[in-house]
């Protein structure tokens, strides 16, 4: 089978036979409509098919097939366009190049040189790939690893239960030795050996890389090993067996079913004298940014130029004779340590691809410029319910929010007997037609990515910031859900779903809305120009509406609480950006009641929409569920709570919510917060799914305590909402016709889409976390930990490990390990005054405390004790920087200033980084003309630094998790 790739001026065929059969990635690339590629099944076409001749080799035959397809295509186009067929087979070039006039057969190298002489990146890529191919042939055969078994044997083994299939998951902290295989458990044995199998050492890992689907064989019980539980400091601390937990099932990899290689970011190590050149100067062992990935051997001639640069590479192969996998470089990101490089690294490591919107996409967009303002279409006005005059509609959002996707309205009907509550959501699907390029791009992105200092929109700015955004005072299309509620019982009498046209009267922000509710004097910008009398009237009207809304929300919340909704604590900060995309502050969620009010209305709308689409399309509706957590993940929480004398009941969500509410230490509010944080970590992840693929009892949303839930209210920044909007539109249409309509996508497509959205959401969350940590590191980087007071902070112990404790620094939102024993075997003890000293001694661990003993002193650290730590930055060259916490006193830290509210520390942090950036930019401006402001500042700002790296911090955070797979989900704060 050959592939036709059409670019604008030439068409050529590729002998992609093997690749096509095997590589899903190539196929996905071709499927992507934005690449203008077509796959031509020449085997199945009468005129381009040629039967294989006797004695003809497979490759020859395939080349001949592709050639005859090329000839056919040339004739099909009636000679209007010349065809280029590229191959790497020199014989084929000789054989075919002179045969037919319109079809040129050339090698890849000639093709690149003749047609794309100035595409430097492609030339480099080609050079690095061909080098790898050449070297592969000349490689020796002495085996470093055992050979993988052939696929038939694996398949038979899996079926008979002899082998186990699963995804390899390398431990972040001991990437060299420890890995786990998560079983895709259908096998009945999974009950007695649990769902994780340990793979110890790289011999038994046998060339599998993190994420691969592998087949493994269990070792006999005598060779089972435990997992190392001590905090290891860097890679040097090699622990012997005594620190291990009880033996886990252990196995070795015998075969790999599917490689899951993606693009990796690596750093070329600096030259360390002549020994690295001894064998082959062109081969470099590059260190991946991700700890879990082994070093990759790269063949390149640019090794010198790429020193200290971060480079995107792909792994090509891993022969059994080689200790490391071979790869080739794809793209250079930039010098390690520069902010732009680091942010790009975060994106690539999470497989986030956000190119600027293409012209073709922007052409699809409606125009709204001062010369040509966008107007409401009269045809749409006729088709939609007009709420512009009849309803008082307002939005409540964070300050400075551009993409307003939700607005609210409330009014009383029938002389106060009933209330009408309305939630009006931006009608994105009106602008983004299914199948359009914008839609495809949005589907690929699946969500808007928020990083600490920037944001990558899912939709082009003209939609997200303007036409879809429900701004105040302008006419906008909306998708509405309106309930008629009984004024007293708040029972739902009637629900109306439909498309509307609205004009939001007030664009409030949370603080302002709260001030109005509290009866404080507040200035509403929309009313500033009115006379005082009218102003008071309008203000009273607005306040009345807000009060009603709050009343309803309280009731709804109470209803859900009865069902057992959880309120969880997540460390969540959000960067506030000004017009130039500079951060003005990192805003933590201030617990105002109005937040809850808005969130409650949104949850209510989501719930009702979920009911509607699920009822109309029982097998193909996109919903969101939150499976109940596995009880064993609660063990840390239970243990910690017991240390403080609280009992936590985790049987149902209701019991859990109640017991969490009770577990409050009046003297230390942090205790409750930490407990809630631990609960969050025990939670399973909330996921989108298609109703056809799960049974009804799986629909339950554990965190919100709702039987059905979906995402409907933020179509501007989430693709799932767009899908739900389309489903709702189809449901409304089906209702009108009276016939059960067909859903837009089949169950299978929907399931595939929800998997895609789930993985993108996970990536977005990880990227956001990493970028926050990047900024934390940048903040502390310039400070001298010895002198700067801001590097001292109060920390709370929340977990005990063998040679240290895990602490939470609330001021900066940092979690991390504190070692009580260093590599020389010295332990830290404290004198009477709380000063610490390092002496040789021993550490003993108990369930709820850990104590260090040296010659003269004994110190004990209990759970939830407050200690003082010094924060410094630990830079490593190839990975991310991380924050290092060091205990300096066992007394709580009291800053000289009065106790600040905790949030300020964090705001300060980013403000400080930004301030530094601005100073640097001023210097830059003196020299150079203006450029894109932020990037230059930041680059300048970072250049003074040593190379930097920060996935260690990630590691540190993960230490707190029982299971690295469980990425904490903050479900109660979803709206």
């Amino acid at each position: 089978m050959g592939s036709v790739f059409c670019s604008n001026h030439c068409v050529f065929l590729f002998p992609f036979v093997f690749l096509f059969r095997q590589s899903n990635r190539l196929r996905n690339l071709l499927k992507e409509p934005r690449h203008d590629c077509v796959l031509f099944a020449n085997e199945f076409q009468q005129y381009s098919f040629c039967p294989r001749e006797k004695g003809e080799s497979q490759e020859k035959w395939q080349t001949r097939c592709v050639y005859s397809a090329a000839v056919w295509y040339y004739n099909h186009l009636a000679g209007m366009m010349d065809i280029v067929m590229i191959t790497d087979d020199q014989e084929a070039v000789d054989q075919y190049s002179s045969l037919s006039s319109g079809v040129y057969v050339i090698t890849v190298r000639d093709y690149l040189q003749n047609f794309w002489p100035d595409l430097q990146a492609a030339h480099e890529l080609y050079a690095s790939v061909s080098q790898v191919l050449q070297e592969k042939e000349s490689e020796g055969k002495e085996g470093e690893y055992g050979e993988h078994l052939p696929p038939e044997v694996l398949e038979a083994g899996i079926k008979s239960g002899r082998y186990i299939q699963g995804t390899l998951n390398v431990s972040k902290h001991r990437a060299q030795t420890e890995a786990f295989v998560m079983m895709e458990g259908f096998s009945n044995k999974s009950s007695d050996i649990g769902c994780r199998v340990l793979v110890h050492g790289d011999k038994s890992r046998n060339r599998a890389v993190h994420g691969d689907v592998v087949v493994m064989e269990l070792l006999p019980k005598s060779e089972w090993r435990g997992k190392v539980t001590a905090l290891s400091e860097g890679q040097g601390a090699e622990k012997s067996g005594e620190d291990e937990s009880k033996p886990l099932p252990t196995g070795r990899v015998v075969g790999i079913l599917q490689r899951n290689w993606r693009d990796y970011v690596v750093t070329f190590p600096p030259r360390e004298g002549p020994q690295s050149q001894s064998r082959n100067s062109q081969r470099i062992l590059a260190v991946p940014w991700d700890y879990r990935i082994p070093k990759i051997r790269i063949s390149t001639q640019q090794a010198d130029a790429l020193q200290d640069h971060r480079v995107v590479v792909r792994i090509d192969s891993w022969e059994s004779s080689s200790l490391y996998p071979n790869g080739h470089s794809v793209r250079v990101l930039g010098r390690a340590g520069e902010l732009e490089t680091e942010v790009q690294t975060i994106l690539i490591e999470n497989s986030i691809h956000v190119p600027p919107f293409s012209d073709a996409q922007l052409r699809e967009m409606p125009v709204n410029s001062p010369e040509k303002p966008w107007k409401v279409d009269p045809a749409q006005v006729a088709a939609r319910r007009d709420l512009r005059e009849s309803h008082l509609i307002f939005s409540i959002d964070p300050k400075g929010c551009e993409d307003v996707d939700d607005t609210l309205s409330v009014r009383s009907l029938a002389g106060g007997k009933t209330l009408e509550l309305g939630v009006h959501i931006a009608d994105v699907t009106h602008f983004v037609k299914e199948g359009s390029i914008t839609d495809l791009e949005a589907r690929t992105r699946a969500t808007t990515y928020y990083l600490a200092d920037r944001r990558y929109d899912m939709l082009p700015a003209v939609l997200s910031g303007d036409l879809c955004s429900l701004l105040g005072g302008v006419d906008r299309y909306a998708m509405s859900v309106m309930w008629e509620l009984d004024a007293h019982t708040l029972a739902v009498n009637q629900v109306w779903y439909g498309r509307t046209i609205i004009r939001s009267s007030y664009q409030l922000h949370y603080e302002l809305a709260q001030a109005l509710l509290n009866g404080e004097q507040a200035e509403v910008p929309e009313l500033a120009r009115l006379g005082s009398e009218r102003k008071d009237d309008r203000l009273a009207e607005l306040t009345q509406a807000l009060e009603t809304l709050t009343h309803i929300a309280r009731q709804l919340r109470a209803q859900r609480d009865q069902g057992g909704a959880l309120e969880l604590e997540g460390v969540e900060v959000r960067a506030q950006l000004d017009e130039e995309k500079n951060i003005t502050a990192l805003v933590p969620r201030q617990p105002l009641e109005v937040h809850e009010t808005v969130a409650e209305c949104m949850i209510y709308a989501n719930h009702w929409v979920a009911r509607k689409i699920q009822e109309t399309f029982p097998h193909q509706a996109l919903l969101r569920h939150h499976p109940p957590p596995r009880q064993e993940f609660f063990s840390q929480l239970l243990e910690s709570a017991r240390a403080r004398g609280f009992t936590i009941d985790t049987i149902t969500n209701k019991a859990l919510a109640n017991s969490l509410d009770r577990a409050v230490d009046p003297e230390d509010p942090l205790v409750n917060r930490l407990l809630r944080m631990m609960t969050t970590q025990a939670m399973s992840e909330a996921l989108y799914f298609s109703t056809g693929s799960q049974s009804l009892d799986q629909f339950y949303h554990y965190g919100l305590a709702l039987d059905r839930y979906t995402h409907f209210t933020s179509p501007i920044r989430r693709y799932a909402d767009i899908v739900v909007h389309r489903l709702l539109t189809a449901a409304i249409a089906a209702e009108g016709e009276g016939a059960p309509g067909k859903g837009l996508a089949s169950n299978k497509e929907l399931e595939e889409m929800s998997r895609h959205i789930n993985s993108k959401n996970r990536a977005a969350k990880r990227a956001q976390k990493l970028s926050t940590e990047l900024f934390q590191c940048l903040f502390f980087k310039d400070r001298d930990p010895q002198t700067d007071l801001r590097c001292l902070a109060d920390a709370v112990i929340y977990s005990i490990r063998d040679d240290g404790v895990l602490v939470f620094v609330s001021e900066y939102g940092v979690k991390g390990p504190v070692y009580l024993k260093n590599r020389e075997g010295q332990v830290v003890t404290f004198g009477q005054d709380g000063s610490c000293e390092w002496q040789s001694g021993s550490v003993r661990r108990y369930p709820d405390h850990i104590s260090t003993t040296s010659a003269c002193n004994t110190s004990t650290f209990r759970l939830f004790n407050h200690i003082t730590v010094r924060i410094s930055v630990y830079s490593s060259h190839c990975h991310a920087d991380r924050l290092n916490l060091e205990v300096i006193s066992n007394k709580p830290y009291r800053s000289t200033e009065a106790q600040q509210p905790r949030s300020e520390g964090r705001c300060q942090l980013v403000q400080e980084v930004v301030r530094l950036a601005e100073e640097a930019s001023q210097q830059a401006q003196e020299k150079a003309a203006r450029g894109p402001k932020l990037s230059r500042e930041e680059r300048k700002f970072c250049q003074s630094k040593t190379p930097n790296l920060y996935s260690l911090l990630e590691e540190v955070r993960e230490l707190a998790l029982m299971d690295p797979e469980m990425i904490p989900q903050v479900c109660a704060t979803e709206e």
Partner: protein
Amino acid sequence: MAGLELLSDQGYRLDGRKATELRKVQARMGVFAQADGSAYLEQGNTKALAVVYGPHEMRGSRSRTLHDRAVINCQYSMATFSTAERKRRPHGDRKSTEMSLHLKQTFEAAVMTQLYPRSQIDIYVKILQSDGGNYSVCVNAATLAVIDAGIPMRDYVCACTVGFVDETPLADLCYAEESGGVSSLALALLPRGGQIALLQMDARLHQDHLETLIEAAMTACKGVSKVLDQVVRQHLEEVSMLTGE
């Protein structure tokens, strides 16, 4: 191992057919002179030979005689060389007994047995080469043989297998598809009246999909019936030419 991709993104199957496309059907009637009726039918790489004797008096145990209609006796067998692995296939094994029974049921529904009381019609089918859809090929070949024997039938009996892959029904499965874990359904149809003579399904399938699957099978059967009709007409032309009418 992820199995073979039975239906590519472009809608091609393993052998290059589209989802609803049948394999090439070629058939000849009257291949043996000694039998009352005979036919040879190829459907792709599945080849079958059908021979009909009768109607004649009951042979063997007379106790099976039916006083109001003819008894249909079917025997299905596979040639030792019909599969990739040579294997002795005795007549009485469970698979072929079951298949014989199915054929019998199918033809009892189609042949107008009441015209021949107290007699017997023998249908012998042999698979010469097996490549999926054995039952349906047998039915199609036997139909032609019965017609060749001049035994009145209500209608052609046409059979076809249909599988269900990626929410799409695939018509006329070949061996690779049948063995690839597809839930398949065999259907024998009297196409003119749309009556189902036999419906057989061993695999699990969601009941929502059953209707589309049957729908597709019926369409496929109608396609087969067109081909058979052509074969019969052509055979008739040839025969009448020979007899000089």
